[in-house]
């Protein structure tokens, strides 16, 4: 009798062990800038990941397995991003990494994931992440080059060819400045005035006056993010400049309109569909995705969505879809599946990746917005 019991127990124990193995969670690792200067990017990103992993697990997980999130905060410091990535790979043994808030952090993580051969989807902006193409590295956000091109496309349509460029002396602004110069000729744009300002400057009327007094200038493009562009816009209003003002995607947040006040009226900028979820036409393929995400985020966190949280949503969903298609978490298979992502509709646009293109977005991902009556509208 006793022997029988022992055998039963052993069988049961074995069954649980096997069961547990089949049910082992999928480990997703992330390193984000939840604190520090880039916190306003990392904060919505981590919230989005947590929210959607919870939702996916509540709906039964992926391939019948739950997702477990291993998250670290690099405090906007690239060195720490590097050491946390090492930890994710060596100690937590994650299956895939979705994260890297800033370009600096991402580039600090790249050598490690390339060496460990782990699929990595970055949430940072700059072109250098995917150019040249790195085998294991992908990214979801638009690049600053696309932003410059989208703006130039609109300028060309309105017949502007000579512009003044006002770039912030931050990483974002300088990268934007470089790309703006690089693609200008392609659109027949000539940059006749090239000025700079600091992210914490209280007054940039000097630079704006110089641009205004440059002969032939037809429009102004500002490249920066945070409060700098808002100060520029306020000064633009103070000087009552008549030149059309363009901003980059760096200011695509409700905060910008609020800080700039009336002066923001008529400002144009390229931005993701997510920001204008409510005014998108019903026929837009992105409409259901962006409306769904905005609602879920607002309901949970009682705050407005930002495109940055959207990047995290796209990264997570691309990863999940790829794992489903690969039918496993085998790293090479998942990597191939990510590269084969086609027609994935995210908050950032329609993603069509290839061996050459590890972002998969084209200019249609950006919408040209115009600020009207203190809100976003699609520019005609």
């Amino acid at each position: 009798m006793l022997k029988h019991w022992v055998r039963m127990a052993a069988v049961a124990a074995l069954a649980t062990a096997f069961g547990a193995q089949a049910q082992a969670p999928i480990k997703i690792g992330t390193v984000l800038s939840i604190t520090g200067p880039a916190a306003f990017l990392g904060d919505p990103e981590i919230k989005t990941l947590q929210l959607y992993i919870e939702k996916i697990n509540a709906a039964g997980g992926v391939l019948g397995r739950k997702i477990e999130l291993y998250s670290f905060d690099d405090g906007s410091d690239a060195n720490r991003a590097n050491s946390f990535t090492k930890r994710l790979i060596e100690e937590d043994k994650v299956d895939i990494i979705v994260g890297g808030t800033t370009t600096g952090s991402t580039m600090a993580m790249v050598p490690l994931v390339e060496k460990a051969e782990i699929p990595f989807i970055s949430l940072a902006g700059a072109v250098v992440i995917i150019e040249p193409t790195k085998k294991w590295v992908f990214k979801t956000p638009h690049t600053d080059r696309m932003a410059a091109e989208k703006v130039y496309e609109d300028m060309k349509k309105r017949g502007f060819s000579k512009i003044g460029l006002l770039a912030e002396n931050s990483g974002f602004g300088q990268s934007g400045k470089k790309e703006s110069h690089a693609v200008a000729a392609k659109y027949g744009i000539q940059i006749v005035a090239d000025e700079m300002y600091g992210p914490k400057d209280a007054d940039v009327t000097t630079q704006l006056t110089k641009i205004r007094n440059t002969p032939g200038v037809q429009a102004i493009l500002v490249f920066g993010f945070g409060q700098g562009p808002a100060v520029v816009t306020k000064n633009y209003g103070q000087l009552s400049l008549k030149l059309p003002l363009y901003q980059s995607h760096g200011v695509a947040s409700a905060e910008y309109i609020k800080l700039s006040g009336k002066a923001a009226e008529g400002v144009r900028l390229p931005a993701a569909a997510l920001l204008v979820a409510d005014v998108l036409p019903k026929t837009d393929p992105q409409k259901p995705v962006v409306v769904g995400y905005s609602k879920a985020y607002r309901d949970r966190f009682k705050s407005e969505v930002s495109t940055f949280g959207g990047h995290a949503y796209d990264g997570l969903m691309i990863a999940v879809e790829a794992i489903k298609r690969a039918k496993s978490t085998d790293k090479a298979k998942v990597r191939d599946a990510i590269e084969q992502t086609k027609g994935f509709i995210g908050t950032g646009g329609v993603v069509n990746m290839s061996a050459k293109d590890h972002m998969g977005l084209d200019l249609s991902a950006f919408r040209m917005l115009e600020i009207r009556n203190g809100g976003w509208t699609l520019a005609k």
Partner: protein
Amino acid sequence: MLSQALQFFFSGLTSGAIYALAAIGFTIIYNSSGVINFAQGEFIMVGGVVAVMLTDAGVPLPLAIAIAVAVAGIVGLLLEKLAIEPAGNAEVVTLIIITIGASIFIQGVVQVVFGKGQRALPPFTGDKPILFGSASLLPQSLWMIGTGALIVLMLAWFFGRTRLGKAVLATAHNRLAAQLVGINTRHVLAVSFVLSALVGGVAGVVSAPITLTSYDTGIMVGLKGFVAATLGGLGSGAGAVVGGLILGLMEALVAGYVSSAYKDAVPFVLIILILFFMPRGLFGERVTERV
């Protein structure tokens, strides 16, 4: 051409006024203890942030300003009571390091309470610019300049005419002698911290409509204010104001006539030149120390 030059001047005046307001705070604590308070920028930030929070919550602007300035004063008092005073007779360098720590701590607290975003305070008297040809100046810039001048006058009166002010100066000159004639020197340090925090709070509130405000506004303002104070001669109220205005104007002129790419180098080049050629600044007293 003339209106362009005028606009550069106005631009410099606006930034200069902010630096001047920041610089005044440095001189008070320096006067009473020889300490350079690197948390001065944080007093400014606290003033701005609290005023924005209150106006957003529906408190009328004048009341919000009064409360914000008072809160900044309390922060100054707490800083002195909880961090500076327990250090006892520590050296000046130690105290300076304590203020750096305090500044990081204050930023952290504000980040949690206020959030990480940026916000703006409504201008006191509208945002309709005053036009001079095609050059324009915001009324808020005049508020800043006026407030700066008023603070300097009040401080001159305080240090020159009141018993408490004279006690502060006496302590700065010779702590032991001051103690011997019956001045409570511990009390004096607290007074100077509260006073400079109040000045910082006022500076934060008047400049918030222009600089916008967030938990990290204090860093750059504090740094530029320090350069301005050094330029004017540490310890001199009028020097601080002149130093701030010169710094702002030089930045604007370099941006306007040389290149905006070099603008941010101005304060740092200036501070090297000052320390090299006139370590006592423009208005600093020429003190000969007896050895």
